[in-house]
């Protein structure tokens, strides 16, 4: 299996542990990553809001680069997935629009033909790789670990664009992967909700309140950690958890794992390889529980 890997800005900025764990996990699974080094930021929704055509053009450029690689795009970020899915749907549905966008790619000798598919690691593992094949690679079953899924808005909604109308199980893939790792998925209200990151600098109190509400909710349901396929959720849930604890007036201490970190633990990789020590909220309790 081979993908045109789009690591995204955050795994190359604030969450280097995601980049590292993604590389290790894919190599352990025998998934070949062809990194799209020249691709630009998706715009994370912010550029779409300012200037939709500009954002769609930058994403069309990424899709054209993937066509050159001859493989689907693989992301490790719910937000990148959402923004790219939306741009791709628009470009594929409207040939006139695609042609206009392509005019801006032409000076670079690029053209998007409309054939690229975009898949998050979460989808790729279940739909392309197969849960049974994954299970066959598990070396360290995470028995006894209670992990709460936290999906991130962009990989769920709108369901029409994110493919959930045809594949409703996509809203259960995290639970399925957690179980495939040998851990127990925790059900709680917060799993589909917003982490608050988009309003962090606009209304910090509300944003941090969301962090506190969902982490405490998961904790009340017995979770030892949260697992997320979105590094932006990670930035907020991990980085602003100390503030959330202050706001809520209670200890939270909830480790926030990136999806590849959880998978990597089950695949027998070391905590160091997965950079589990590069978090704001300590992941020590999780490592001890699974003997990593």
């Amino acid at each position, binding site marked *: 299996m081979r993908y045109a890997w789009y690591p995204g*800005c*955050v795994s*190359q*900025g*604030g*969450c*280097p*542990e995601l980049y590292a764990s993604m590389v290790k996990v894919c190599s352990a699974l025998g998934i070949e990553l062809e990194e799209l*080094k*020249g*691709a*630009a*930021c998706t*715009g*994370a*929704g*912010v*550029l779409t*809001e*300012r*200037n939709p*055509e*500009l954002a769609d*053009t*930058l994403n069309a*450029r990424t899709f054209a680069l993937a066509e050159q690689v001859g493989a689907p795009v693989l992301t490790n970020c719910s937000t990148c997935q959402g923004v790219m899915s939306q741009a791709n749907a628009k470009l594929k549905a409207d040939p006139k629009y695609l042609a206009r966008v392509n005019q*801006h790619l032409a*000076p*670079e000798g690029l053209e998007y033909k409309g054939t690229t598919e975009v898949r998050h690691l979460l989808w790729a593992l279940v739909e392309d790789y197969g849960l049974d094949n994954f299970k066959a690679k598990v070396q360290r079953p995470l028995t006894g670990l209670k992990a709460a899924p936290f999906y991130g*808005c*962009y990989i*769920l*909604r*709108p*369901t029409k664009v994110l493919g959930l109308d045809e594949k409703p199980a996509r809203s259960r893939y995290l639970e399925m992967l957690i179980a495939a790792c040998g851990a127990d998925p925790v059900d709680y209200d917060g799993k589909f*909700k*917003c982490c*608050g990151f*988009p*309003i962090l*600098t*606009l*209304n910090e*109190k*509300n*944003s941090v*309140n*969301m962090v506190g*509400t969902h982490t405490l909710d998961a904790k009340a349901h017995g979770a030892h950690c949260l697992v997320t396929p979105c590094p932006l959720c990670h930035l907020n849930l991990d*980085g*602003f958890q*100390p*503030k959330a604890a202050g706001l809520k007036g209670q200890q939270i201490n909830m480790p926030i794992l990136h999806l590849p970190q959880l998978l990597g633990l089950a695949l027998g990789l070391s905590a160091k390889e997965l950079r589990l*020590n*590069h*978090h*704001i909220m300590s992941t020590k309790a999780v490592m001890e529980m699974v003997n990593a």
Partner: protein
Amino acid sequence: MQVTYRIKRFDPEVDKTPRFQDFTLQVGENDSVLDGMIKIREEQDGSLALRCSCRAAICGSCAMRVNGEPRLMCKTRIRDAAPEGLVKVEPMGNLPVVKDLVVDMGPFWQKVRAVKPWLEPPAAKPEREYLAPNEAMREVVGVVACIMCGACVSDCTVWEVDPNFLGPAALAKAYRFVADPRNTDNDERLKSLTEYTGIWDCTHCFYCVQACPKDVAPMERILALRREAIKHGYTDHNGVRHSDSFAQSVKDSGSLNEGRLAVETQGYLNLPALIGLAPVGLRALKAGKMPSPLHHKRPGASQVKRIFNELEKEEKTT
């Protein structure tokens, strides 16, 4: 077919906490979830409280959570909602429960009233009616379709943590008047919408877009209001600085520079806020995850810049 309704019940005069009650009944192939609810009330339990009127997705009174998602019960077929013979019905979220499935819509209407949901046409009266170009009205019609059902508010993630937030329905309604060419006082409206509880408090979670049975897409209207507010010069806001800094960073290097984004959003002159960032920065530094201050350009950055220049120029000329 036979189905079981699992209904959330709560009677404040009797119950301390809500409870679920199951009702099993025969329903028709094409019945709506609402048809079954009415049958339960008529045949099994007359005390079941629910709201409905038109039964045709027009009045907006039957919005409830069906299998956890806000839906108009009259517009949802039972065979789709209960493929395995079980459907869960709960009252909408974010609004106080009066009894069983009936919620207090007071806070909803209060927000709608707060955005001045009426036209303020120019003082000089035209001889006949006020004329509006078709195109402009086409934009507005999408919001006029709102039936005030509250489904979008039910799941709004900001309303959940901050009931002061004007919320998706009221903000969509505000857009309906801002976008109407016959309206005159957009400056005032946009100014107040820029304040706390308004357009910049939305967290872009898509819940309202997903929930709305009439495709009003409230979130998209909120984003359109943001663009309008900026056009009208209301730019002294972290939301605007955040967006500007984000765009500039991608334009300069092809990717996002998080350190720069954090500082530029607060504004270089906003010392207290910058000092507030320090603990977060220090914790990140300690964990070895502070973004490098030397933000490298991506290969292809010059092409990205070219695309930015071309499209920003096009935007200015249109």
